[in-house]
């Protein structure tokens, strides 16, 4: 491995001269959907940059392997390292190894445990989870206002696994939004967990419908649950014109539901943008420029107006 890296970096040096930036990246796993989008974002962005080269390694979800890869990168003299951590609790050792060798380190997508004590020359690139739920909830609030329901609207919320940070955060975001002056006309009838699952959300929504209470909006912590709610509402003959449904993730299924006029709001996590951002940050650090400890790549709101940008 060392040898391959060494020859690769030598080749890169010879090809582009001494100014070339050599970046090593260790990705938690190559076969993960989301991470693949991010990884492609990195390679695509790399092609637009001249004079930099990227060496990508698959950590195969193995903490020990990932640390070995980082040490290999250091040994082969890369200018910066990008890590998508297998286990965010195991980042301390990586930070130390890189700091000791004086090599800049960029964490991407997964927040390292030692965020507060990150050494100089290290940074974290990701999206701010607070944005996703807030963006969706606020847009739903606007939609309800546009429908003339600002006199009072009722909503249900389907939460993800209660043990999951994103679920807790997105639920809190929704509460925060309907606590704002502009949106406090929305009252939450009930909130329950459907464990991210379309099937459980379908059953939960049917249960809510059976109580006979009128409602105007359903917020799912993710798209799957929002789609489950839509299926249950359609089965009960509720017109999707009358209900504002929001989710998070912008999955293919959700986009199709939005095209069909069933889904109103979802939020796209710009994973490719995160990948590209991590490259930019790594290059800046390698050039000795100052970089914020945390670099946020914004979430994008997806609505029927701009859905075409996200269909491929």
């Amino acid at each position, binding site marked *: 491995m060392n040898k391959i890296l060494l020859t690769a970096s030598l080749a890169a040096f010879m090809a582009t001269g001494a100014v070339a930036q050599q970046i090593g990246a260790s990705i938690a796993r190559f076969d993960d959907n989301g991470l693949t989008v991010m990884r492609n974002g990195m390679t695509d962005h790399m092609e637009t940059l001249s004079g930099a080269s990227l060496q990508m390694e698959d950590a195969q979800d193995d903490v020990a392997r990932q640390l070995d890869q980082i040490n290999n990168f250091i040994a082969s003299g890369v200018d910066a390292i990008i890590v998508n951590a297998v286990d965010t609790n195991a980042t301390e050792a990586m930070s130390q190894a890189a700091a000791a060798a004086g090599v800049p380190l960029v964490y991407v997508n997964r927040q390292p445990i030692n965020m507060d004590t990150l050494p100089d020359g290290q940074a974290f690139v990701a999206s701010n989870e607070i944005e996703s739920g807030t963006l969706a909830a606020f847009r739903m609030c606007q939609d309800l206002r546009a429908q003339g329901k600002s006199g009072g609207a009722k909503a249900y919320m389907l939460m993800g696994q209660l043990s999951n940070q994103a679920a807790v955060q997105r639920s809190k975001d929704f509460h925060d939004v309907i606590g704002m002056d502009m949106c406090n006309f929305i009252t939450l009838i009930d909130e329950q967990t459907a*464990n991210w699952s379309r*099937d459980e959300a379908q059953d939960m929504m049917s249960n809510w419908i059976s109580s006979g209470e009128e409602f105007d909006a359903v917020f799912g912590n993710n798209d799957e649950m929002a789609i489950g709610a839509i299926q249950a509402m359609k089965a009960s003959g509720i017109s999707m014109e009358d209900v504002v449904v929001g989710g998070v993730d912008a999955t293919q299924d959700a986009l199709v539901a939005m*095209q069909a006029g069933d889904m109103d709001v979802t939020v796209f996590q710009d994973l490719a943008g995160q990948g590209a951002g991590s490259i930019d940050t790594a290059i800046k650090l390698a050039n000795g420029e100052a970089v914020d400890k945390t670099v946020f790549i914004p979430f994008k709101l997806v609505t029927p107006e701009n859905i075409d940008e996200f269909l491929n």
Partner: protein
Amino acid sequence: MAETTHGIGGLKYDKSKRSWPNELNIFFALIIIVLIFEALGQLLPYMNGQSMLFDFNTRRDGTILNIARIKIIILQVSIIGIIALGVTQVIISGGIDLSSGPLVGATAMIVMSFAQTELVNGNPNPKAVFGEWAFDLPVIVPLIVGLMFGALIGGINGTLIALTRIPPFIATLGMFLICRGIAQWWTKGQPVSFPTESYAFIGKGMMPVVWFLMLAFVFHFVLKYTVYGKHTYAIGSNEDAARMSGINIKRHKILVYMIASMLAAFAAIVLSSKNLTAQSGMGPFYELYAIAMAVIGGVSLMGGRGSIIGTVLGAMVFGVIQSGFTYVKLDAFYQLMAMGVIIIAAVVLDQWRQQRAALRS
């Protein structure tokens, strides 16, 4: 108490010593649980005197029953209920099947790949697994593929248990992991979506309930009145005695596990059709819920005792509790705890009743 008969018993029929069929107890428990929820509806201040099963504000179709709630109570347990029908047979035969949940995930992924439609909203299917040839196949293709896959997995389970004599717990635990692996490997974790209309019909609306009750009826009959059923009970009660009376234990066990896995595979078909998607994580904890339904329904984990009617009632208990929790707006944090308490209580009560019945005779 017993003065005259010893040993095999039953020679002297005494009407006073005949106990109720177990199913009746579960039925009463079901009614009590409903009454508790109805009482909570009247007592809890924030419920505004709403009723769980009745609908007094007659905004709907004129019936006084809350049809929508009754529908969802049974709809939400039908799919796991179908699995529970198979699990019931496995447990009666003295075994256990832990692989049914992941088998649901794996079967759903595989089956859905053969049930995809070519165009979604006029665009090519963004989730296509295979090429052109696998689009818009007749619905019988995914059905057969799914049931065959179930039979294969069940056959392996049964063969392992019957021939190598490893404990069913271990064999099916291994299969649990294998099936979860297959589910993830099939599309490398990608969900499979957008089935044909005819496939979507299998799990549409109340169809899961229709399948559940139909299969329950069939297997009630099979267990009660056929040789297959009698052999299943015999093996579960006393395997040695069953062997000595000439039952081909090995063949029969394989058959029981095959039927159970085919039922789980069918549940996967209904589930993926109902949701119009298949995901590798589908069927989380289904194996445990299916076992819990059977156990609440009076199926003994020691084997040899239980019935399909009991399991159907056990499933209904689950459905009533689940809807009841939502109806009284019980916070999600407490639901799992309450569910756990109810499962344990059900089995403790049943054990206690069994012991008393044993003492009496």
